[in-house]
């Protein structure tokens, strides 16, 4: 893909009065996105129209004077259908979302033009300058399909350009026609003809202007038939699906680990640099612990998001995802979810953030909302450290039982997700999931560049939107835990004095004393901070789960991010905040005692905490992304209340039951 010469066009842009807005319209699977990327490249952004939660990509094509602002509308099967995508197209073309477009570009699949021409007729009837792009011209040529663009243009009353979004063929001509387009008049006899007459007219137009080998009944179709039968078979299809999804997530886990570690190291260095440069005080604490720490906590998710959307875009481009949706629909529809919900649900096993973002694959609004609400129930990677810790406490020395418990956590999360979806579809989102009617696109070699651009776009959206909200929340949480500043406890001062005295004689012991002093100081700070006082206040709420004040503070801080729970406990029990040796943390926590001397993590408490962490909503970034994807704080509030409330109830039942069974205090 070539980019225009910036210098050559800069002066032209400066002289241009304004850009020409072009609405990109077409059926799904006609290569609109690839064509959009070919026209705009990286100069595209995802935006919301005011009053709309749906996103539209808007790009700038600088190879024209005036430059073209391309608005990529969702793929639609008909302009007049009572579906959200069709409504959005109508609103855009009528100028109800923003300005009325200056022109319409209708993208038609050159290998299957009939449906696209019906849409083109509807677009031309709106009396806006219109151009038709016959996309996949390269594929059509390979199949021996020929077309007379001039004849078709005469019939349709608008310019027709054969293009290939993939190779770039015809793009320059297309840009010129978009620049010069005027309102056309389709040669269709009457605008109110019957569907049958319109269809006959279209067939006549195709017969007059297109020719070549008829694709129906070719060997390609028999291959597609065999593939479709396999991919949608109840057993083979499921096996293929498990293999494909397993490979996808294995790839994410394998590839994301290194860049995530690099991001951690980078921000650690950045924090260290800031700490060295900024004088000690509130500003340094805010920058290092609040801002840099908060940003790091968001950006660390970026590799997973980039890789997931890249791989999903590739899979979608191959045509496989549509087949897989039918395989999963058999299971999902029993719980009020559509087959397309499988991608967000499975993605949420890695991380709920990209999982929720990928819910855009679900076309129906209520189906999409139900999916977004329950996706965070799926056990994500952030829960793993907590699972490892608590299962280690429960089943120390029993690896088989620990393994079953691990699997049980995943199953519990999935069961809660499906049952919650069923409940939601019977109450707040009544109705059944939209019956599956999906066009099965041709199997194609995926476009790496298109997938990279999708991934890039998603990554930017994530950073820009989730990061701003999350950053704000994290700064507030940091402030709550950092203020008011507590005086250093006398015991800590005494330990430090002792450490100085023995530093030369016994440096290791001195280091231990220093660590103990740090721990006491941190504990005093936490207890005296606003967050600590909230912990004191909230402890009675978590007492039925077996939590004391220390554990309550750990639970509350983990609402920032689940994995914080482990390090919080380690610090609270006297370890450093950089303890990452699982064994040492396990030992610390196993030996922890309540103020009355009893074991903190008895069987009942460990079991209830495990269930709580499986089910509770403890991820502020997830809530922020839910808000963004739903356009309202109502849904993340409901998500938080339902998940955390359910977690509390089930954990309390588990604690009471196990307590009664074990007779532990």
């Amino acid at each position: 893909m070539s980019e225009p010469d910036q210098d050559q066009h800069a002066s032209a842009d400066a002289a241009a009065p304004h850009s020409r807005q072009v609405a990109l319209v077409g059926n799904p699977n006609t290569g609109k996105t690839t064509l959009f990327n070919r026209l705009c490249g990286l100069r595209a952004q995802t935006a919301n129209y005011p009053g709309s939660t749906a996103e539209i990509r808007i790009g700038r094509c600088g190879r024209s004077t005036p430059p073209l602002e391309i608005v990529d509308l969702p793929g639609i099967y008909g302009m007049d259908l009572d579906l959200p995508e069709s409504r959005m197209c109508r609103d855009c073309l009528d100028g109800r979302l923003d300005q009325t477009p200056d022109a319409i570009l209708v993208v038609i699949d050159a290998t299957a033009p009939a449906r696209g021409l019906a849409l083109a007729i509807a677009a031309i009837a709106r009396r806006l300058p219109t151009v038709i792009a016959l996309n996949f011209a390269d594929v059509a040529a390979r199949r021996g399909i020929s077309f007379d663009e001039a004849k078709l243009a005469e019939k349709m009353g608008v310019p027709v350009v054969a293009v290939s979004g993939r190779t770039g063929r015809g793009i320059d001509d297309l840009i010129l026609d978009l620049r010069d387009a005027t309102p056309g008049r389709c040669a269709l006899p009457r605008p109110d003809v019957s569907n049958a007459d319109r269809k006959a007219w279209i067939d006549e137009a195709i017969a007059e202007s297109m020719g070549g080998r008829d694709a129906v009944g070719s060997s390609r179709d028999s291959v597609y038939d065999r593939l479709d039968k396999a991919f949608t078979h109840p057993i083979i299809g499921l096996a293929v699906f498990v293999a494909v999804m397993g490979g996808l997530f294995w790839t994410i886990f394998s590839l994301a680990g290194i860049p995530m570690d690099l991001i951690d190291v980078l921000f650690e260095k950045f924090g260290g640099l800031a700490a060295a440069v900024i004088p000690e005080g509130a500003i340094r604490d805010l920058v290092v612990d609040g801002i840099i720490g908060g940003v790091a906590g968001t950006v660390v998710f970026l590799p997973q998001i980039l890789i997931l959307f890249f791989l999903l875009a590739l899979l979608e481009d191959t045509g496989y995802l549509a087949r897989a949706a039918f395989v999963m629909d058999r299971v999902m529809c029993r719980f009020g979810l559509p087959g397309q919900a499988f991608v967000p649900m499975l993605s949420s096993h890695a991380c709920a953030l990209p999982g929720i973002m990928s819910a855009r694959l679900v076309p129906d609004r209520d189906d999409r909302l139900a999916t977004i609400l329950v996706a965070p129930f799926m056990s994500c990677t952030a829960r793993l450290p907590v699972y490892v810790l608590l299962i280690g406490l429960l089943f120390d020395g029993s690896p088989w039982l620990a393994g079953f418990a691990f699997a049980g956590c995943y199953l519990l999360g999935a069961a809660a997700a499906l049952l919650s979806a069923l409940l939601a579809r019977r109450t707040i989102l009544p109705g059944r999931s939209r019956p599956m009617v999906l066009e099965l696109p041709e199997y194609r070699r995926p476009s790496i560049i298109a997938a990279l651009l999708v991934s890039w776009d998603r990554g930017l959206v994530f950073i820009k939107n989730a990061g701003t909200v999350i950053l704000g929340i994290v700064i507030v949480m940091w402030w709550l835990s950092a203020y008011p500043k507590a005086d250093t406890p006398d015991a800590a001062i005494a330990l430090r004095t002792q450490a100085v005295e023995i530093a030369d004689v016994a440096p290791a012991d001195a280091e231990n004393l220093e660590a103990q002093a740090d721990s006491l100081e941190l504990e005093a700070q936490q207890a005296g901070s606003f967050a600590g006082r909230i912990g004191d206040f909230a402890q009675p709420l978590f007492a039925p789960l077996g939590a004391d004040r220390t554990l309550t503070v750990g639970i509350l801080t983990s609402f920032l991010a689940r994995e914080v729970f482990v390090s919080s406990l380690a610090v609270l029990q006297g370890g450093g905040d950089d303890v990452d040796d699982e064994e040492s943390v396990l030992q610390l926590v196993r030996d922890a005692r309540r103020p009355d001397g009893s074991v903190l993590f008895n069987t009942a408490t460990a079991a209830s905490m495990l269930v709580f962490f499986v089910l509770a909503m403890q991820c502020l970034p997830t809530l922020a992304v839910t808000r963004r994807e739903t356009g309202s704080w109502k849904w993340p509030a409901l998500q938080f209340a339902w998940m955390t409330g359910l977690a509390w109830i089930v954990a309390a039942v588990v604690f009471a039951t196990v307590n009664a069974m074990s007779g532990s205090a």
Partner: protein
Amino acid sequence: MLEAMGVDHGCEVEICKVGSPCILRTGSTRLGVGREVAARIMATITVSA
């Protein structure tokens, strides 16, 4: 929606796969429809496989 996708009154469809999903071909468009939707499409057999 089906009409907009090419399955309209009087059209010719080829059934590539029965069951759920039922896979139809009309023209060069392949559609997958769930059992519930397929049960509502009335067709007359013109050519048997």
